[in-house]
């Protein structure tokens, strides 16, 4: 079966900002009157990737990493400093009306709803602006009302809606024209867990039913786990990982968490005798950290030697993985290799030159040696791992 075509192609994308800097204090304020100093911020620094139609891709990175900037360039909101970008056959910065009709961009902290009017007015405004026929509008709106439970909100002024209600209406307003490409920048920020789950479920359903491509940034790992089989990690403006979420987790934390519910307290030293690290024991529940290789043995021993009532084996918590990824902690200490699909590369120190990969496309399974020539244990481990290309089919990782 042939893969869907590339919807997005990014080659050597660079976006730099010139930011004025001024130390605090009156003297600095006066000096700034005569001589303003600027700092070049490399928000996005030579990244390349491709995304196929229908994929759901999560962009991960700490604050200020460059992920939102990347999304804004792809949506045509920002002009790239250098590099080539093609989205659905358009150059986004041209903001061609047909391109704008094919996308939507929802940012959790920004809104398009008219503040003093009920959401229904914004929907109608968007219908006219996007040139949606009345029949199609009615059909889409009815569907959105049903799925997002909007009926009670339509006639209330936006300013009187709760954050969650407003977010649902924002999504609906952005979907009136049935876009085929969804840019979601922190869409669940500030929402309670129920509303987060509802929005995630809706976005996933929209992707599955309409074949829409979804690009998402979020600091909530639940968003990423539920919506993004493929993740692109950006740090200091550099692409440091592009591949399956599951691969990222296993690469950084190559161990599993085994949770044992015990029918009665274990004998002293019994847990330690299993040969795994004991993470916690409380209320009859023991959590062990087990390497992939010894998993079978530890589980078999636990079932044989301990009064196990229930047992669960999970990957490391995503929060831990991402936290480690951004802080450069334990097993996942990143190598200095440039980004390749399914691989991890360290972010460069600020001011470093362009990466060895240049403007070429990322090559699945291809690993380049570290640029600084120093191959650490961690980087050797990472580079030795089997590179798995991202699942372009949009399936959830197991």
């Amino acid at each position, binding site marked *: 079966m042939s893969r869907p075509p590339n919807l997005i192609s990014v080659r050597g994308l660079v976006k730099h900002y010139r930011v004025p800097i001024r130390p605090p204090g009156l003297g600095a304020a006066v000096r700034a009157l005569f001589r303003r100093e600027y700092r070049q911020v490399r928000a996005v620094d030579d990244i390349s990737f491709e995304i196929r139609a229908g994929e759901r891709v999560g962009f991960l990175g700490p604050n200020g990493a460059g992920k939102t900037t990347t999304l804004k360039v792809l*949506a045509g*909101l920002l002009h790239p400093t250098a590099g080539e970008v093609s989205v659905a056959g358009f150059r986004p910065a*041209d903001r061609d*009306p047909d391109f*704008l009709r094919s996308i939507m961009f929802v940012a959790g902290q920004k809104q398009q709803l008219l503040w*003093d009017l009920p959401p229904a*007015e*914004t929907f109608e405004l968007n219908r006219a602006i996007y040139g949606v026929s009345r029949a199609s509008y009615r059909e889409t709106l009815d569907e959105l009302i049903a799925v997002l439970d909007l009926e009670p909100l339509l006639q209330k002024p936006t300013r009187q809606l709760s954050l969650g209600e407003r977010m649902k209406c924002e999504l609906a307003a952005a979907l009136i024209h049935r876009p085929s490409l969804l840019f979601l920048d922190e869409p669940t920020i500030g929402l309670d867990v129920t509303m987060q789950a509802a929005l995630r479920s809706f976005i996933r359903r929209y992707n599955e039913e309409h074949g829409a491509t979804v690009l998402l940034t979020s600091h909530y790992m639940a968003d990423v786990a539920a919506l993004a089989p493929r993740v692109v990690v950006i740090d200091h403006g550099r692409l440091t990982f592009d591949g399956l979420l599951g691969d990222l987790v296993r690469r950084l934390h190559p161990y599993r968490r085994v949770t044992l519910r015990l029918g009665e307290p274990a004998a002293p030293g019994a847990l330690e005798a299993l040969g795994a690290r004991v993470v916690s024991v409380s209320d009859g529940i023991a959590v062990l950290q087990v390497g992939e290789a010894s998993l079978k043995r530890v589980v078999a021993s636990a079932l044989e030697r301990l009064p196990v009532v229930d047992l669960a084996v999970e990957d490391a918590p995503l929060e831990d993985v991402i936290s480690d990824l951004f802080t450069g902690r334990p097993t996942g200490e990143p190598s200095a290799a440039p980004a390749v699909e399914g691989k991890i590369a360290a972010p460069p120190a600020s001011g470093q030159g362009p990466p060895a990969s240049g403007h070429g496309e990322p090559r699945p399974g291809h690993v380049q040696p570290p640029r600084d020539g120093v191959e650490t244990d961690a980087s050797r481990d990472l580079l030795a791992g089997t590179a798995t290309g991202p699942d372009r089919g949009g399936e959830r990782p197991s």
Partner: protein
Amino acid sequence: MTDAAPALAVRPPGRRTLLARSLRALPVMLRVHFAEAIAWRAEFLIWVLAYTLPLIMLALWSAVAREAPVGRFGEREFRAYFLATLVFRLLAASWVVWDMNFQIRQGTIAARLLRPVHPLVQFAAQQAAALPLRVVLATPIAIAAIAWVGADAVTDDPLQLAMLPLLLAGAWAITFLVMAMIGSLSFFWESALGIFDLWLGFYFLFSGYLMPLELLPAPVRAVGVWMPFRYMLSFPVEVTLGLVDRREMLFGLALQWGWAVLLGWGAYATWRAGVRRYSAFGG
């Protein structure tokens, strides 16, 4: 060795449908933004009531003219002039410079940039949609002014009366486009509103807001005739009161719309250059 990758194939930008789509969307845009203006009615009323300067000028110049007429302006002529000024100022006003500045600095301009209708058209529709509300507020003032000053203070030339909507539209267009141009400078400078304050200084002097332009010294007046300020306020007032003849009116009308076209190009070019620099860093 580096293999030069072929350039990504992208479609050339097509603008043909933009105008047609904008025009089709215009009625709904005007209706929705009118509803928005109604929702703001309290703020709107307070804002409009803040236009008291013509009334202050009326009192001031009437007092001066009580002694003796100033040029061809007696007490009654000043009354007619400043009340007409108040009405046209109410009708031709815009606040887009503050909106644009705020939205660009906050990053909320993104919502407009993402829509397939030019953002300047979106702003124009939003501002123009408030006109009916302005008419509702200005009409009682105009009626009271005519009752006070007398209907014969208004021109009886049918051509001049027929041209008033066009003159009002021209005055509004210049006001909006200048504001849009200065507002677009917010893409470059956070303090673009300071430039607008500078503009306002010239506006007060050359628009006839503080005094009829013909009372200015001849050299200043000669400069003022060619500048856009007169066509934002004074000129429609002069035509309404019959202070210019038909020939002068047609010449002024041509100048007014010439400025509108020029400023339209300026606003578009500034916007276009600004969007290229748009960063909204972290926004």
